[in-house]
């Protein structure tokens, strides 16, 4: 508190000074007095107190800087405090480029150069003391809230840290003591915190290694780890551990080792590492984001496949009798999913509704109960229940992973942006360090220079008023473009609607008067008509949209991308909506009219067909649109240009395919496997085609921003839509009566009800479970109401918090600006004082500046 009083005094003096600018010497006295006091008092705590609000947001701080030049010798560093004797061959660096600096005296310069915000980057001492502070904070937090994981990243290095910079003698020893303290603190942290801290330290590895290997840190755990690895029995007697803790320690070690090996296994699964590197080396971050997205989808599908494979396909395949394929393979099955595939683990209809048991498979078609049928095995596997919960859990986990990924990406890419320093950002952040190919590097620098030129022109122009007729023309053009796109989308949707209705009626007709003379192949092939129509719409309309957009002339490329994305998305969502209606509304509602034994299998096959057809059309598109088009334009038109890889359209196609896979997983448990194969092929195909046919995109692509957008799209319309479809099917649509795990039930969720009833009858203690089940699953209205309420409240609170944070950020930004102003003011004031005092007492100024450097 003493210090704050001092500051007040200082302020008072300043005010006095403003009122009567005559008495400069008094001000100077008070200033040096203050500095002396500061130097004695080490006001680190005050400083921390003062800076606490800055901890709220680490973007808005002005006080960071712990830039170290680790190679620097202490004496060098020491000399850097005095710019006029800088030994690096840059004398008077402070004076460059500033109109006023030339007038400043060396004493002022010395003070300036020892100001915290400027010393900050120079000394190892500053870094060490900053990290000391961080470890202290972390420890303090650990004591109060042991679970917190984030450490504050914005603690201002204490003033103590700068004490060492300029004091002649205390420098080295002080750094040593600080080092020791830091080492001590590091030792007291938990292993993971310590590692994180060490990794984030901007020191050279050899120095970190010193910290790491200091005897105190080379702690028991390392010793134990090695001893465990090499000779467990003897090692314990060596390490003098008490007997009782040996057991626990060994358990911990084993657990930790397995964990480490799991982690290393995971990280060694860096799929397509070199492929991604070549792509990014040639095409940069934008195109890379497509492939990374593809890989993300692949992981989602691998997860889904492992879940369904483990809990559904494997038990069914093991416990059921062999396949009874009636028809020989004709090749067409690969496209339609019919024929011998129909009665296989691939589709819903094949799964039994019985409880699978060891050596005893109970099959009871058309029975409404799923009880055990007098077969006494130890291993029960209730297939309907497993089916229900596997699909549910898979969706739940996918949802959690998606939301988590989204959250992380949002945190990274959407920052509160006043976008003032666009030019500086362009200069410092636009170079893509990944690019390795010479021509691409050249292109990149060309791009950057054009962008810089445009920005410069914009800065010069400063928003000219667009004349009204031009504006009107632009608006009418846009309206026309949108209406064209909307109209064509609508037309396509209507076409799909009527075509699916027609196909449905056609199927009904065939079902009613089955014609034995008709080849089954024709019948199978006619099923492919709808997927072909939909896929060709998906292929052709985006091209149309692109043409429209090229006429429309959007000024910013990001605007253009967003428009293209929204149009494509609109098309895909509406087509999928119509298809869902077709499957769930027409086929599932009235399977009898088609003489379908199992409508779920039929819908599953439809989805399979759509997925495969989508894949085939992508291949065709790649071949014709990229390969042949390149040949055509290069050989015949003799143009140098190659086609550009359209990232947005390709990603949207991936999202579309993934939606199909998610929708179909209920009816086709093996659909994720198909999707995995598809994605694998797609990766290699797209990569080859890209390398052969495409050129580096000329437009800037905000990769992190767009990745966030795409993950959001994957979550919101895609995953949510699929989840709604699946939930609707489970909750309200009557499953087939003669096939599948849910035969005989009114809805799929009733399998859970039967199970709960059964549990209740065997164990009366579990009555609460049935109560919970009744209210959660069967009468979901109350439950859903509460969930929605809670969600809304949580979202509301979060928006409030974000709002508050935004306000704080603006405040802090103002504060930063104010501090800059203050600094400017103080510097000029200091200079004035020095100028006045120079003739009288130069010796004293020297002393002052030496002291003030502590400040």
């Amino acid at each position, binding site marked *: 508190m003493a210090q704050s009083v001092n500051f007040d005094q200082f302020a008072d003096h300043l005010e006095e000074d403003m009122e009567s600018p005559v008495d400069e010497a008094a001000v100077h006295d008070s200033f040096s007095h203050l500095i002396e006091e500061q130097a004695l008092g080490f006001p680190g705590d005050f400083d921390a107190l003062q800076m606490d609000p800055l901890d709220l947001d680490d973007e808005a701080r002005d006080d960071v800087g712990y830039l170290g030049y680790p190679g620097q010798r202490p004496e060098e560093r020491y000399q850097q405090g005095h710019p006029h004797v800088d030994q690096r061959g*840059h004398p008077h660096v402070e004076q460059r*480029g500033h109109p006023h600096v030339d007038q400043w005296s060396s004493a002022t310069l010395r003070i300036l150069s020892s100001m915290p915000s400027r010393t900050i980057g120079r000394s190892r001492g500053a870094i060490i003391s900053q990290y000391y502070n961080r470890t202290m904070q972390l420890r303090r937090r650990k004591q109060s809230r042991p679970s917190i994981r984030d450490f504050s990243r914005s603690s201002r290095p204490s003033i103590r840290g700068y004490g060492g910079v300029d004091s002649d003698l205390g420098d080295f020893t002080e750094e040593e003591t600080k080092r020791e303290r830091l080492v001590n603190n590091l030792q007291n942290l938990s292993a993971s915190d310590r590692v994180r801290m060490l*990794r984030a330290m901007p020191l050279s590895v050899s120095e970190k290694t010193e910290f790491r290997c200091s005897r105190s840190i080379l702690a028991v755990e390392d010793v134990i780890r090695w001893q465990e690895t090499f000779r467990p029995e003897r090692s314990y007697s060596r390490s003098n551990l008490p007997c009782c803790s040996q057991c626990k320690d060994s358990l911990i070690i084993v657990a930790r080792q397995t964990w480490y090996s799991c982690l290393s296994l995971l990280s060694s699964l860096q799929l397509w590492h070199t492929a991604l590197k070549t792509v990014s080396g040639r095409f940069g971050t934008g195109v890379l984001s497509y492939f990374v997205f593809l890989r993300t989808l692949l992981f989602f599908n691998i997860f889904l496949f492992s879940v369904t494979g483990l809990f559904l396909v494997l038990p069914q395949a093991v416990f059921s009798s062999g396949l009874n394929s009636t028809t020989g393979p004709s090749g067409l099955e690969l496209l339609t999913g019919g024929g011998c595939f129909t009665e296989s683990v691939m589709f819903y209809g094949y799964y039994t509704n019985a409880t699978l048991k060891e050596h005893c498979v109970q099959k009871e078609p058309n029975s409404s109960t799923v009880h055990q049928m007098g077969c006494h095995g130890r291993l029960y596997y209730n297939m309907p229940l497993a089916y229900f919960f596997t699909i549910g859990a898979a969706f739940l986990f996918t949802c959690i992973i998606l939301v988590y990924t989204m959250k992380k990406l949002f945190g990274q890419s959407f920052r509160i942006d006043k976008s*003032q320093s666009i030019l500086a950002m362009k200069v410092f952040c636009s170079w893509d360090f990944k690019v390795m190919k010479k021509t691409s590097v050249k292109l990149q620098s060309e791009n950057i220079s054009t962008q810089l030129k445009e920005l410069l022109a914009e800065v010069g122009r400063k928003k000219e008023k667009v004349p009204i007729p031009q504006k009107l023309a632009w608006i009418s053009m846009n309206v026309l473009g949108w209406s064209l796109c909307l109209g064509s989308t609508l037309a396509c949707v209507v076409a799909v609607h009527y075509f699916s209705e027609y196909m449905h009626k056609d199927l009904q007709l065939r079902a009613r008067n089955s014609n034995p003379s008709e080849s089954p192949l024709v019948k199978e092939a006619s099923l492919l008509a709808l997927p072909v129509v939909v896929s060709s719409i998906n292929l052709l309309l985006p091209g149309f949209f692109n043409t429209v957009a090229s006429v429309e002339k959007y000024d910013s490329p990001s605007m253009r991308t967003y428009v293209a994305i929204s149009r494509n998305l609109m098309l895909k969502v509406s087509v999928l909506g119509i298809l869902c209606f077709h499957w769930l509304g027409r086929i599932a509602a009235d399977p009898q009219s088609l003489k379908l034994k199992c409508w779920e299998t039929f819908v599953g096959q439809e989805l399979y067909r759509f997925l495969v057809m989508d894949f085939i059309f992508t291949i065709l598109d790649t071949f014709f649109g990229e390969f042949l088009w390149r040949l055509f334009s290069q050989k015949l038109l003799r143009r140098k240009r190659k086609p550009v890889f359209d990232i947005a359209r390709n990603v949207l196609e991936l999202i579309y395919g993934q939606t199909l896979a998610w929708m179909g997983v209920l009816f086709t448990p093996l659909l994720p496997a198909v999707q995995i194969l598809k994605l694998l092929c797609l990766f290699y195909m797209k990569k080859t085609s890209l390398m052969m046919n495409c050129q580096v995109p000329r437009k800037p692509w905000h990769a992190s*921003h767009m990745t966030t957008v795409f993950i959001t799209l994957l979550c919101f319309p895609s995953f949510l839509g699929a989840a709604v479809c699946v939930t609707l099917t489970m909750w309200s649509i009557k499953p087939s009566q003669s096939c599948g795990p849910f035969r005989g039930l009114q809805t799929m969720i009733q399998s859970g009800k039967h199970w709960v009833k059964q549990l209740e009858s065997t164990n009366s203690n579990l009555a609460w479970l049935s109560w919970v089940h009744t209210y959660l699953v069967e009468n979901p209205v109350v439950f859903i109401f509460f969930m929605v309420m809670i969600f809304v409240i949580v979202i509301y609170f979060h928006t409030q918090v974000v709002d508050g944070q935004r306000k704080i950020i603006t405040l802090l930004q103002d504060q930063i600006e104010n501090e800059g102003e203050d600094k400017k003011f103080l510097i000029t004031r200091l200079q004035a004082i020095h100028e006045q005092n120079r003739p009288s007492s130069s010796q004293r100024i020297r002393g002052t500046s030496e002291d003030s450097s502590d400040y």
Partner: protein
Amino acid sequence: MATSHASVSSHAKAAHNPKLQDSRCLSPLLEWMKHHIEHQTALETTILKDCTYFTRKEILRLHGRYHELAPHLVPMDYTNEPDVKVPLALIVNMPELKENPFRNRIVESFSEDGMGNLSFNDFVDMFSVLSEMAPRELKAIYAFKIYDFNVDNFLCKEDLEKTLNRLTKEELTPEEVVLVCEKSIEESDLDGDNKLSFADFENMISRAPEFLSTFHIRI
């Protein structure tokens, strides 16, 4: 200080050496010597792993790359090379850096002597900071160093000019370069000294979401 540290750590290694089991037949020291190398590797990779954003396997792969750079200087096995340094001219020839306009600055910023000679530790450090895992804070610090051509801890006009000339391969006219320099300093300078301190730089970087994805080299 360095020597005291060395003695401390070797003492620690000797004291904690796990392979001292058969002390009747062999003296502990001999035994220690015998298994020195593999343990040393395990130990050093553990330490490196804890200090950087790489796994053990990646560190070994990096060592392979490091060895490739100068096969006559760097031994094949991982240890026994505390003093080996590969000069800048060799490192800059890596395909990852070869076409990078800032390659010399990158290597210099990570070298301990400031001249661009990289020990293996520095080499790992470099790619650790440029890896995907490194936080924005750390990346910003080294980006600042890279752009600070004259090593005065400020990005002044001169630095900016050099940066721009490298970025654009001298496609801008000198007037444009000067204009861009002035404008960008004006935009992000907070304390009015007409150059960017690290605080200014980080403040600017924190508003550029692209930075994390562009300041990244796949190794």
